[in-house]
């Protein structure tokens, strides 16, 4: 282990702001993007369920 303490690890030899600013932004975006992709899919599924229900209802009306 090359770090003597956690605060030394955070300081990154005086470059803490730059190093953690980079890794932080990367982590944030890589958490948000998959969530957005999942939300997009679940929205598509909700929309599909609504469409299928509407189609069935209109079919029922025409047959009855």
């Amino acid at each position, binding site marked *: *282990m090359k*770090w003597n303490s956690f605060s030394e690890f955070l300081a990154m030899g005086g470059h803490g702001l*730059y190093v953690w600013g*980079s890794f932080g932004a990367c982590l944030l975006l890589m958490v948000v993007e998959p969530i957005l992709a999942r939300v997009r899919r679940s929205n*598509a599924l909700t929309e599909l369920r609504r469409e299928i229900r509407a189609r069935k209802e209109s079919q029922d009306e025409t047959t009855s």
Partner: protein
Amino acid sequence: MNNRIINWFKFASPQTFYPLAGKMIPWFWALTAIFGLAGLYLGFFVAPTDAQQGEGYRIIFIHVPASWMSMFIYLVMAFWAALGLGFNARLSGMMASALAPTGALMAFLSLWTGALWGKPMWGAWWVWDARLTSELILFFLYLGFIALQSAIDDARRADKAGAVLALVGVVNIPIIYFSVKWWNTLHQGASVSLTRSPSMAQTMLWGMLLMALAFWMYSIAVSLTRVRAIILERERHAGWVEELEELKS
């Protein structure tokens, strides 16, 4: 011989690709985590302090993978776009649209981490250097592709327009790659090249390669998730969609 051709066309249909992608996604997430944790461990706890740049150089562990992926994803996107344009295959266009946001994210991360690296090392967040400028153009190409596609209501026409833009933009990729050779730039030359041994410590190199693999797996996982959403959006009138397990509940 014939089997191979048939398989190709089989997986090229959204109907067979949709469940296949769903099965592959968890595996790519697992690989992202494994490579990512190993890369971060090497990058932060094993790789030595750089003689010139101190600890600040550790930005390399995301800056280089993000930059590589931003260029590579563009090539893959242009490849799918060209295939869609040439063979009029539905899935190809969807793949291209699914890749664009992830590529834009990688280009953004490349620029962002580059700025945070440039400030302490060069004393400037940004310079109009050949490499930086061509990477910025790549970011704009992604945004232009996304904007152009979303501006056209008809999905097939949006694919075609996007494909032309993507293919014209390919010219930018070698410009980015060779910019540090062709012009006198502030940006340092390639740390890793195929023709000579890398100019960095072994552990640094391995950390960077592992992170690059993690970014690669991440890109596949997230674009497969997105392409599934796009398939559902575009194929909503197809019979097979109605039969999906997800819609039974």
